[in-house]
């Protein structure tokens, strides 16, 4: 691509961007009260959801045994009954499908011998590929504490850095609140869709801290530092960039989610998708609404 064959026609790009701006124009016309109210309402709903339906903890956080068999297609309920009867312990079975394999996961309580489960399953599926893992509750507890500490520390570190960069209370607090709301909504959606809280999904939540702050910083920078444009113009500029950013990342994550059969990667991808969707709302409505309100109230139009 060193030598483009056709002369660049920036007008084509301009047309696309103009169209995009027009499509997103409704956002710019929204009053800042509405912009602030909707995301806050969603945040509250997420809090309520969390209170009534917190995601279950995965076995790596609470202890337990899981045997995964690849190359098996089975009715989960029948299989669960079959294994429970032979093992004398109640098990839960979940099936999954990927692009090239499908399989089942068998969850059993702490203390069950995974090789016993494999032996029982081999009667039915001798050719399947088995893996297993087991976690004691004591280690689950350590992992839980560390996970919570990791989230809290990462969040605080992010907050400090945001303050250092903007040195301005209202915009900084808004960014920090947006990130908090993104994570809260992502966790609430996890509960809703039955995705377990595991070390992998905690990693995904940590990733969200990094991801979501990006677009907020972009917006804040554009609105506070770009003084040659009007607020609405700067906002539209930022939204159009942000929209491109989010859809690109979402697309890549969706592909990842579709192709991988690794539970770790799948769960990370889906949690990030939840978070990015939440972030779209939080950045371009909540954060933007607060900034618009802040800028229209402050005569100087932001510091620096």
């Amino acid at each position, binding site marked *: *691509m060193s*030598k483009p064959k056709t*002369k*660049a026609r*920036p007008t*084509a*790009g*301009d047309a*696309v961007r103009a169209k995009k701006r027009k499509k997103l124009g409704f956002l710019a016309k929204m009053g800042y009260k509405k912009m602030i109210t909707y995301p806050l309402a969603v945040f509250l709903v997420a809090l309520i959801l969390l209170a009534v339906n917190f995601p279950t903890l995965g076995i790596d956080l609470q202890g337990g045994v899981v045997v995964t068999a*690849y190359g098996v297609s089975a009715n989960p309920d029948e299989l669960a009954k079959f294994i429970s009867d032979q093992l004398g312990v109640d098990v839960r079975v979940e099936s999954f499908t990927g*692009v090239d*394999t499908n399989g089942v996961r068998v969850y059993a309580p702490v203390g069950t*011998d995974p*090789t016993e489960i*494999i032996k029982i399953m081999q009667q039915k599926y001798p050719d399947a*590929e088995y*893996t*297993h*893992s087991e*976690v*004691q509750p*004591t*280690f689950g507890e*350590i992992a839980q504490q560390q996970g919570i500490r*990791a989230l809290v*520390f990462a969040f605080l*570190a992010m907050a*400090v*850095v945001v303050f250092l*960069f903007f040195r301005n209370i209202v915009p900084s607090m808004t960014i920090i609140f947006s990130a908090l709301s993104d994570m809260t909504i992502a966790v609430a959606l996890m509960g809703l869709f039955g995705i377990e809280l595991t*070390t*992998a999904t905690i*990693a995904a939540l*940590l*990733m969200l801290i*990094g*991801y979501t*702050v*990006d*677009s907020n*910083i*972009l917006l804040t*920078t554009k609105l506070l*530092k770009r003084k040659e444009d009007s607020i609405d113009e700067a906002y539209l*500029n930022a939204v159009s*960039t942000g929209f*491109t950013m989010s859809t*690109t*990342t979402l*697309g*890549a994550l*969706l*592909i*990842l989610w579709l*192709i991988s*059969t*690794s539970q*770790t*990667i799948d769960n*990370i991808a889906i949690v990030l998708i939840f978070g990015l969707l939440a972030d779209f709302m939080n950045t371009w409505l909540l954060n933007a609404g607060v900034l618009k309100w802040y800028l229209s109230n402050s005569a100087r139009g932001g510091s620096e």
Partner: protein
Amino acid sequence: MRRKTKRLLLNWRIILLILFLAGSIATLAVKPLTFGIDISGGVALVAQTEHPVDSDTMQLVVDSLQKRLNTLGLRDITVEAQGDQIVLIKVANVSTAEQANQIKAVIESQGVFYMEFNGVIFGTGSDVEYVGIYQIKPDNSWSVPFRISKSAAEKFAELAKGKVGWPVDMFLDPPVNSLMVVPDSVYRLMNSTEFNAEAPEAPTLMERISKAFNITVVAYANQSADEIAGLAEGKDKIVLVDVPQELQSGLEGMNLTVRYVPRNPGESDHQLIVRVLGLYGPYSLGEGLTIGEPQQDVQITGTAPDRLTAEQEASTIYTVLKSGSLPVKLNVVGMEFISPRLGENFKTQALYAGIAALIAVLLIVYFHYRNWKIAIPVASTSFFEVLIILGFAALINWNLDLPSIAGIIAAIGTGVDQQIVITDELLSGERSTKISRRSSVIKRMGRAFFVIFASAATTIAAMSFLLVYFVGTLKGFAFTTILGVLIGILITRPAYAEIAKYLLGED
């Protein structure tokens, strides 16, 4: 046009990118990537020490585990301490679940070993320097030769001087600092000369363990749980031996650590005591060791009624000596087994997923800008970034596990985002200010890089806590994320900005 191309290629940012790319490709060609257990197959075990230990003790644990697993003939073992209580053991090339469980059993059976004489501990497992092959003679007597450290030999020589026939005890995982509640018959047996080898004048077993391990033994006489709790004050745990089991729940209700040991069918008092204490011996002290001269090469001997029993006794003590070199007891608290064939699947999947995600980025970026001159550089910059991260990982032998791959994905995600920020800043200026283009390009880039640095700084700040403080699998995630972000802001982002300026800014 040509001059501009030349100027672009001579730009230090582009040169830097090319250098790093060439370096990475060369590294990858010479040193292939290594993968974590969750991708290459094998077993990963998380073991926890019984209580937090200092770093020296932790190092001993790591060394002895490594040695022990090596003697089993296993290859590709990594043992890594994390924090003051967690040891991570990874063994590659384990192909069956049974094999995986065997490794777990080996780690758990590795106990804390003590050698005790006259109530004094003169050596632990780490003092056992070498264990010879055991021998069994035709008269069914057996012997296990071994070598103890110089300091243990000296200590022992002093203790044992003139004490021919006195009992030498060895313990594997005795209940250190505990209160033992035992039936009356057991109490009387422990307080007799039953365990005194050939020296009735030596202190009884009960006196010896009390002095050496602070184990207090009481006879059960219908004491209530409260009374027992009172006796156990200051002890780590209570061991209930063959007494009513109701006591256990009562004591556990008071938040005390309780171990309940029932009597096996047909088990004698003697057998029960030996089992509860993890006692090997007592062995009678031979005359040669009582002259006060330190001797490092010693042996344990015994006689058995038949050859099979002799074999069993000898091999047990052989195994105990060989394995009992941990300074603290370990419990396996987590284990994950991935069969190698499955791991292979994950690897190809990760590769396909990565390529597909890159293509998705390419197409979506094209869709947004309708301009290949943006889409291709954005996607290829991301691709370069992955190459450089992988090259770096290969260089420092970083094991790529699933969380590490997730970290790479995260870095790519933010990378694409930041490239779009740069692109949009460049494009948005195109229409408005043609005249002062140069200065305005610089200004806009400044703004784009402010956003980029701010978001990179937040990511690095958030992740560095994980990298430094936390145990478990999230380290790989933090490492690749930070690495990716650093490579991004230092190498690929500035280069992309130059390329984008060249392609878009000035026709």
